[in-house]
């Protein structure tokens, strides 16, 4: 038996979201079951069934290289802006 992770798309154009899993002996059985379990009220525009073993999960998220410069939280401009305004004489009271 294979565990298939189910991802469903609620409307065309939207991102697929993980919705649960089903266990089935093969893809054809999984297909039938997923239609019944996730589509019998027309609530899904599309379904992806992915054998769990096929998913490669990136496990280490250590930030060894300090990648904050790639994000907004890597920049704290408040005190520098204040200093710059003070020097320029444009600070508001």
């Amino acid at each position, binding site marked *: *038996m294979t*565990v298939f992770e189910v991802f469903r798309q609620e409307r065309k154009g939207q991102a697929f979201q*993980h*919705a*649960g*899993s*089903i*266990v089935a*002996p*093969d893809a054809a*059985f999984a297909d039938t079951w997923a239609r*019944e*379990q*996730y589509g*019998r009220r027309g*609530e899904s525009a599309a379904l992806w069934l992915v054998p769990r073993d096929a998913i490669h*999960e990136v496990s280490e998220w250590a930030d060894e290289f300090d990648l904050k410069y790639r994000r907004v939280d890597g920049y704290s401009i408040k005190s520098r802006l204040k200093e710059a305004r003070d020097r320029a004489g444009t600070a508001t009271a």
Partner: protein
Amino acid sequence: MDSRGEEFLAYVQGGGQVEAGDWMPDEYRQKLVKFVEMHGNSELMGVLPEREWILKAPTLQRKLALTAKVQDEVGHAQLIYRVVEDLGKPRERCLADLVSGTSKFHNVFHYPTRTWGDVGVIAWLVDAAAIISQKALLKCSYAPYARIMKKICWEESFHILHGRDVVLAMMTGTDAQRELVQEALIRWWPPLMQFHGNPIPRDEDPMYVWRIKSQGNEEARQQFLEGYVPQIRELGLEIPDPNLRRRDDGTWEYTEPDWDELRSVVTGHGPRSQERLDFRRRFLEQERWVRDAVLAA
């Protein structure tokens, strides 16, 4: 608890969620399996009181709606047992423990369904009580469980409407029909008041402490009363509790439910406990060839 366990506890209490592959304390895993498994059992056993009425439903439309509801609930059991399996307990063992009486299912599914009035009251009010508990699981600290709860809550909302429609059809019918609903309400009120469990303070409830559920038992019951007592009364139905009253601060007072009865019922001593377990046992055996055929494929 060691420091890793304490860190985990602080994380879930701060609203953090964990995935199947993440480390979790043994105690958390055990509590989670027990809770989720009982939920799965309840979905599976919950179809039996209604199943009896598929053949006896008054119209074809009602038959179809009831069949669809039964399919939904069995589907929920399948989703929930998948979550339990990923936590380390195979479905075969869940089913074996269910039919041997080792694990439990909700009190309301241990009672008989005497009339079509009971079917309406179950679908409306038992499902209403259940959806209050289930909505509190949308924020469960165990993310895979929280995710499937979205689908479950969505489907439960149809069930409530179906139940309310059944009740309304009877309440706008003959005196005899109204009487059936009133009698069913009298039968179901005590189990409904027991449904959310004893009023243990939430910080002493391990299921809340680990944020498996996000509200205490009494909060859930108060939410049920606040939401549904007015809806029941506006139909001219009488709730069989002379002490039921809403205080000025919005808190509902009620007669203390019989907690001994609740304990006895959920440990397999309810009026239909053994009969329903026998039924499940018989079908598990009878349908073995289907599982064997699928596994052999």
